[in-house]
């Protein structure tokens, strides 16, 4: 039953249909897209390791360069992928909105679930390979690793949906989105321990919500990782804030976008 006053989300049939449909296309027009989701972080990770080995530096924390980089890189990859892929969720599904049951929010949720499933696999693949080659570790507190993943998912959902709304009015937004995504590599503690930075640097990077989630992720992997910058209240406000803005933005521009 389709009613005009349908609640914002919940349409399991449609979301499932979209997920199956998008599983063919969300990662590019061919199955190579899935390989890409693994290759991209793998290449970045390898480069960072090579550079650090060449200049003769050890891991900023723990024994393994690979694990240290991965604990931040994979968070960024997941967030970036959500941000880009949700941004296009309205525009690339435009023709489907002629089928009345398909609502814009369904396409966003379907992509969120699909990207998240892929990144659960990517994460499992990376951490397992690191462990099997002796460069990884079994998470000390796995619940924190899961918590970090969920937080990035929610934050990425909010940002991605806001991107989608802006992009539907202003297609050049895709270039700005990249502009904000790039500095994450330097701003998210990829090759340093944030707490060891000088206070001036900390006072800047602590405004990046992703770095807080990276800290939680690392606390999950390393038993003795302490964070000076982690602020649960800030994470809560950041996630809650973007989600509220995203919902309002979607709701109040719905008629203009149709």
């Amino acid at each position, binding site marked *: 039953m389709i009613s005009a006053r349908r609640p914002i989300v919940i349409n399991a*049939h449609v979301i499932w*249909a979209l997920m*199956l*449909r998008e599983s063919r*296309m969300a990662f590019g027009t061919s199955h190579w897209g899935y390989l890409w989701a693994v290759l991209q972080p793998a290449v970045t990770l390898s480069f960072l390791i090579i550079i650090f080995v060449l200049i003769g530096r050890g891991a900023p924390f723990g024994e393994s360069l690979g694990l240290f980089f991965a604990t931040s890189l994979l968070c960024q990859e997941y967030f970036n992928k959500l941000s880009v892929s949700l941004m296009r969720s309205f525009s690339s599904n435009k023709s489907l909105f*002629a089928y*009345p049951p398909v609502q814009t929010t369904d396409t966003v949720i379907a992509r969120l679930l699909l990207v998240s499933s892929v990144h659960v696999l990517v994460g499992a693949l990376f951490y397992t390979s690191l462990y099997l080659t002796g460069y990884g570790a079994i998470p000390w507190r796995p619940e924190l690793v899961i918590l970090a993943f969920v937080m990035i998912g929610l934050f990425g959902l909010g940002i991605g949906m806001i991107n989608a709304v802006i992009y539907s009015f202003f297609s050049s937004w895709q270039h700005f989105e990249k502009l904000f995504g790039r500095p994450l590599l330097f701003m998210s503690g990829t090759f340093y321990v944030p707490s060891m930075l000088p206070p001036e640097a900390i006072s800047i990077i602590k405004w990046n919500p992703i770095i807080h989630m990276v800290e939680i992720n690392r606390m999950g992997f390393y038993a003795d990782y302490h964070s000076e910058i982690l602020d649960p209240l800030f994470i809560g406000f950041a996630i809650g804030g973007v989600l509220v803005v995203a919902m309002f933005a979607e709701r109040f521009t719905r008629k203009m976008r149709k």
Partner: protein
Amino acid sequence: MIRFHDLSKSYPSYGGRHHVLDRSNAVFEAGVNYALMGHNGAGKSTVMRMVSGADLPTSGWVERQGMVSWPLGFSGGFNSTMTGRENVLFVARTYGQNTAEVLEAAADFAEIGKSMEMPVSTYSTGMKQRLAFGLSLAISFDTYLIDEVTSVGDARFKRKCDEALLGRLATSRVIMISHSETTIRKYCQAGMLLWDRNLYEYDDIEELIKDYKTVCR
């Protein structure tokens, strides 16, 4: 039953806003086949999209009981890189239907055989239309929407569409846009005239056609 509640619809166009409806409270009673008439550009297709839910009113809302189709034969939702089969499965899942049944019925009706496994980009316009028509009829809607019955295929296929649609009308009803008096007389018992930002209801088709002629000529 489908009811408009204080529904207004306008959209920006050259030289100010174009008003389709202004606080309409039209009712499409259950089980009755309606013809929707109006002059070119009055906004018949827009009204139909609002009935289906694919377009939103500027203000007011639409109350719907029963499952309403998308405009019959619409193939614009097909993704051309996906196969016919994948496209059909997507729509069947969207409506929570038995996918195997819908797939079989649609493929059977469209008569495109092995092409079901080919990307839609390889289809001719006729094949696409036949598949879209077969898909619409494979799902049992309470209300079928038809925006201008276009010629689908040859005379034999047209007859087949006609028979299938009439078969569906035993348990469902139709709301159709058409300029053809013959088609309207054949399918509809009631009508709506879209004129001057309002929908006027008729329970006599002949009167609808008479008024339509007065208004549009």
